[in-house]
């Protein structure tokens, strides 16, 4: 009975059909994957309930009792720093009748107490107390040790905490694979690592979550066109992207498109002190990361950790695309900087990101419009049976002396998008993690 509820027959049929919807090699993608309820529901099970999902940076929860609330797929979770000093992630849903137990989006607390009948949970999600416990005397199967909030695994990479609901999933380290080497460009260009600036801007887009995620994984092609108005307003011209000095790189569906121009992204923050800081540090970055990766620190680029954690080096913003149905996405945006950077740079980054990559930012403003329209048109039954074209740079794969993972020449490319959809199809078609190949 439970078995059939969890894995409806249609899953198998649907999963078998995924191959027909995504031809990642040739770059043909069926538009139904951006629209259909049934595909979306399978995504929640096979992608979001199965992958490592970013939940918090260490510096967001510095003290015991600090917490925030967010979602993994559509599952509401609490992320908190326990008495053991560790980060815990568990469902924000009482084991008694299911009521939500935490209503604040951030704060500090010793307990999460349910408003309905007063059950209260500790910072690790365990059930600590029930109200009127004497009412359970006599014959009772109330076993507090079994009635804690359902927990996710939590593992971290250099301060970035990820949670995963699948006990069978590989470790975070394996999941990230070669991409860890790239993440170090941001997380480890300085011995102090990074810190997140307080606050988290959230907004809703009427789009499928994959459009923005694939945009960040590899779509530098759109930048000079979509963002022409902002580029011209700020610089009076388009940036130069050199095919011979720029790349797509990916591993396990995670991807980064980048130039080696060092400051292209950072320059749009309109802040001379930020540029000065980067130039002063360049030699130090090179010492830690080697010459090639050091040139990525503030470069024209964008990236995505599969499935939904995107970031921009240089702009210093992380964001997640949280699914809220096949046609709705909640964007969470953060700003970060090197923890050892001079204090006054905090304001420069905070204000610079708001000017460029927040919902009112001069760049981001034009993105939402595109993502929403790419989704909405699929209301047409004929429209959504048409394929989308992802065929740029089919023969651009190269061997590179230093760059790891799968590497492609030129950042104007669609190789990373194809890798993103390949990973998506691998997971959607696989019954268990054992069937998911390393890419």
């Amino acid at each position: 009975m439970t078995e059939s509820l969890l894995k409806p027959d249609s899953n198998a049929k649907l999963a078998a059909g995924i191959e027909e919807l995504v031809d990642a090699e040739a770059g043909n993608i069926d538009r139904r994957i951006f629209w259909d309820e049934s595909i979306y529901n399978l995504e929640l099970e096979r992608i979001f309930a199965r992958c490592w999902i970013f939940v918090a940076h260490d510096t967001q929860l510095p003290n015991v009792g600090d917490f925030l609330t967010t979602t993994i797929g559509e599952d509401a979770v609490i992320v908190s720093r326990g008495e053991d000093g560790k980060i815990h992630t568990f469902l924000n849903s009482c084991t008694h009748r299911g009521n939500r137990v935490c209503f604040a989006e951030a704060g500090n607390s010793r307990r999460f107490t349910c408003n309905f009948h007063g059950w209260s949970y500790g910072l690790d999600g365990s059930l600590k107390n029930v109200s009127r416990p004497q009412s359970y005397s006599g014959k009772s199967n109330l076993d507090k040790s079994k009635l804690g909030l359902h927990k996710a695994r939590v593992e971290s990479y250099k301060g970035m905490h990820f949670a995963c609901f699948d006990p069978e999933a590989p470790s975070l380290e394996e999941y990230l694979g070669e991409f860890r080497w790239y993440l170090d460009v941001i997380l480890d260009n300085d011995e102090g690592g990074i810190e997140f600036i307080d606050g988290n801007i959230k907004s809703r887009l009427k789009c499928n979550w994959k459009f923005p995620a694939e945009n960040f994984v590899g779509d530098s092609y759109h930048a000079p066109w979509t963002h022409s108005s902002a580029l011209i307003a700020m610089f009076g011209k388009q940036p130069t992207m050199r095919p011979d000095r720029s790349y797509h790189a990916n591993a396990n569906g995670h991807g980064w498109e980048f130039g080696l121009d060092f400051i292209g992204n950072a320059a749009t923050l309109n802040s001379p002190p930020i540029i000065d800081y980067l130039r002063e540090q360049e030699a130090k970055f090179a010492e830690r990361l080697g010459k090639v990766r050091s040139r990525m620190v503030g470069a024209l680029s964008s990236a995505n950790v599969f499935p939904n954690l995107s970031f921009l080096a240089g702009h210093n913003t992380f964001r997640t695309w949280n699914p809220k149905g096949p046609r709705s996405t909640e964007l969470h945006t953060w700003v970060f900087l090197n923890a050892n950077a001079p204090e006054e740079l905090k304001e420069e980054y905070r204000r610079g990101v708001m000017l460029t990559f927040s919902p009112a930012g001069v760049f981001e403003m034009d993105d939402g419009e595109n993502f929403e329209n790419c989704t909405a048109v699929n209301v047409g039954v004929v429209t959504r049976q048409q394929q989308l074209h992802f065929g740029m740079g089919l023969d651009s794969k190269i061997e590179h002396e230093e760059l790891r993972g799968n590497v492609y020449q030129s950042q104007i490319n669609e190789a990373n998008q194809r890798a993103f959809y390949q990973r998506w199809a691998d997971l959607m078609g696989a019954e268990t993690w054992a069937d998911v190949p390393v890419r």
Partner: protein
Amino acid sequence: MKTLEQTTRRDHCSVSAELLLEIQQFLYREARLLDNEQYDEWLELLTDDIHYWVPGVQARYRKDEAKFSSERMAYFDDGLEYLKIRVARAKQPSAWAEDPPTRHFHLIGNIEVLPTEDSNEWTVHSVILNHRHRTEDDEMELKARRVDTIRRNSEGLLQLARRKVILQETVLQAKNINTFL
């Protein structure tokens, strides 16, 4: 003997009806300039030292009381230079997302004018509803409470010197904010 009416006016709103009307008209005119995308004229209503702030609002427990803070992320935390950059982008012919243009209105209500220690400056509370419509059926509403500082400059004209906009939403129910509030 004062009538009850006069007492109320003196205690809660000790500015003249004339000034109240002048400030109200100033805010209505500002709203119309924004509706019509007359951004250069809008910029002229701002003092050189304007601070325009739309903080991110968080749902926090009462004991925290920190729904927003100046150190946290915001939608806008701008001086005149940043506001001019935003206007310059909106005016580009290649601002594709603004063509056809958004149809806006800014509805202003609950205007309350309070004197300050500076006889040329007033604190002005108001509520704003910005309604947006794009293409056939793309409809968005932004709702907020505002606290302004309005100043009379040396030429005798009113200008906006500070604005704090507290949105109703903790999660912005829209893809962007392509106007000023």
